């Protein structure tokens, strides 16, 4: 900051032109080439400490047999990574199964969490009596912690003493579905609970996006004779494009990081089929203190997410000429 002040003082308030001329266009009016970096420095420090350093240290850890309670941490090269894809190793089959579990969950929860909240947001955006209550009701579950919703749903979903099967039986449907101890019922349960729990968040983001679309566009569309569906397709959806991309990416990441629901509701049952990647990473690293393998797993998962996010961005990129 002091260099900035000094520059301003030395050039004076009135005559800035000589500075510009001397240093060319790249130098801002208010200082030297380091000024932007000085402004970035506070965030850079945080970024380096909490993002860069952990990545580098994590990479280092993943190349060792690393149990932090044991002083000997022998170098293992790519051994941890190899183990993950070796069906004969202790962790290999479990890791692949956990990645599959995360994949299944992401595959089915993301479309629902993208579409259902959009529908809810469209409803919330309409003008009707009791709208605020309606908005609050949909957002309410999101306020609860995962431990709360999990305990709640475990009692509802229990196949022997739970409410859900009782009600299903009362209306003549099968009442013996094992919602927490068999697949695919457990996936229906986990995805259903997650949609119920988090749809409010996505809906609020959509709602903000909807309110940003100028009303004139709708008016113009109406004058052009567009019906409701055409308004939605040609005004609402294009208007929501940036919001939609944001929602898709954060929903994918949130779904891929699913942990609490399966940890608390199904305990990974049956036979680890609903144990997600994050669940398994936490178990490996924090319960078994096997930080080396846990770090390796995290990198593989991160890599998958990077690729997936890249694909989403590619899909949402502005197509030249096509849409304009």
């Amino acid at each position: 900051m002091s260099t900035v002040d000094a520059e301003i003082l030395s050039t004076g308030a009135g005559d800035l032109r000589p500075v510009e001329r001397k240093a060319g266009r790249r130098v801002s009016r208010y200082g030297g080439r380091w000024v932007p970096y000085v402004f970035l420095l506070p965030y850079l420090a945080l970024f380096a400490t909490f993002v860069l350093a952990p990545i580098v240290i994590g990479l280092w850890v993943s190349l060792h047999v690393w149990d932090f309670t044991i002083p000997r941490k022998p170098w293992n090269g790519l051994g941890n990574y190899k183990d993950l894809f070796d069906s004969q190793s202790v962790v290999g089959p479990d890791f692949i199964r956990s990645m599959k579990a995360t994949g299944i969950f992401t595959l089915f929860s993301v479309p629902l969490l993208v579409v259902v909240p959009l529908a809810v947001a469209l409803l919330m955006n309409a003008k009707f009596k009791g709208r605020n209550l309606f908005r609050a009701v949909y957002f309410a579950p999101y306020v609860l912690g995962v431990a709360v919703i999990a305990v709640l749903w475990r009692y509802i979903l229990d196949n022997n003493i739970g409410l859900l099967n009782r009600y299903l039986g009362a209306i003549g449907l099968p009442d013996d579905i094992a919602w927490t101890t068999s697949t695919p019922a457990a996936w229906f349960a986990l995805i259903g609970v997650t949609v119920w729990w988090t749809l409010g968040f996505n809906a609020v983001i959509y709602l903000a996006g909807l309110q940003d679309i100028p009303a004139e566009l709708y008016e113009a569309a109406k004058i052009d004779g567009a019906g409701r569906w055409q308004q939605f397709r040609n005004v609402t959806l294009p208007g929501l494009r940036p919001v939609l991309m944001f929602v898709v990416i954060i929903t994918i990441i949130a779904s891929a990081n699913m942990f609490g629901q399966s940890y608390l509701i199904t305990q990974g049952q049956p036979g680890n089929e609903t144990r997600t990647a994050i669940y398994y990473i936490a178990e490996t690293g924090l319960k078994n203190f096997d930080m080396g393998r846990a770090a390796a797993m995290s990198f593989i998962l991160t890599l998958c997410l990077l690729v997936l996010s890249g694909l989403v961005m590619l899909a949402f990129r502005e197509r030249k000429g096509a849409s304009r």
Partner: protein
Amino acid sequence: MTPTPLSRRNFLGLSAAVGLAGFAAACGGTSGPPGTQQQEGGGGTFTGTYDGPNVALAFWNGFTGGDGPYMKKLVDQFNKEHPNIKVTMTTIRWQDYYQKVPAAVQSGKGPDVGAAHQDNLATLAARRSIQPLDDLASELKLEENDFIPAVWQGGVYQGKRYGIPLDVHSLAQYWNSDQLSKGGLQKPPASKEEFDQAVSKIKSDAGVAQPFWMPSLWPAHLIFYSLIWQNGGAPYSEDGKTATFNSPEGVAALTWMVDQIKAGTSPRNVAIDTQYNAFKTGRNAGTFDGIWQINDLKTTAPKLKWQMAAVPQIFDKKAVWSNGHNFVLMNQPKPDDNKLQASKVFINYISEKSAEWANAGMIPARNSARQDPSFAKQPQAVVAADVDSFHFLPAVPGIGDVGFQGIEQAVAKATLLQQDPKTALDNSAGVANKLLEDNRKKFGG
């Protein structure tokens, strides 16, 4: 291995969130663990009292169930009688406890004194979270012949003593008294024949269609341990180096569990805690669970009339899974003789209150306290009558995790009828043997 009731099992969560925060910290890696300079007890001779300057001791444990308030009471009593020692008790669910203690000790922020299960002592010792206390045992004048041999031996790892036994606890059976008597029975079954008879009588006469619900998770593996020992097998070889739970004895044990489901004695797909919750509400008639549930039943199902007994003998021998609580001394980055001395006074004090601790639903580890007439009034005394039937897991570092990834998975898969018992056990034994080998490399045993 975690003898606190619902609290530990119901609210499994959040630990991970906390844990993940610790992940980054852990990766930072402190250079040397505090235990590198092992303190062999030290602290001069033990006189039974402490008269140094005021010290504060941190005491961590996992008594989150009906046992917690009793320990708190003993600690308060101790603080009152020892004005120069202030013990602060912190209770963390066992499951989190065993995650936190190694990390806390590693970073030099561990407590002074802790409690630990017998089957976790070797793991904690191998991770050098706790220090040997042979001298303390002799200073406290603990005699081997005052303890159950398996409990006394269970505190030893690589020739050194790491735990001062506090209590033992085992699996037991609980029955709904009303339904038992409607079925024309006076007491819980003691043998396989009595068990089958009790089940069919309660079915026909008490109108309970499914009297005994077989869990798929906790404490299903404890039932399996008990049965394999009853059948003359063992989960692991004696040296703890190989998994033997897929032996014919083990397959027969697990088959008996699965047969209860196939025969309709138990419903299918019993989720976590369901069998116990159903017992509390009278939906089933009997359940197997740890003796630590006594206080939970008393407080959360006060109207339920129940009685308990030792696990019935289904196979040739009497045997039941057991475990014990021990006192441990944590490794410190900077050994402090005053604290060490005060810790010893504290451990000695509680250890001598064995009989009062029995109110927490536990069985005193000391023979003298167990044979005391006051203990005979405790509900768990019926279970303690035959301590020779108590079987413990071998003192091998990492055995808890081997059980979790091995036996518990096999038992879950078989009781959910996903795999037949033999396939499930064979698969899990393969995993367990690999883990045991990994652990040997890691811990150097």
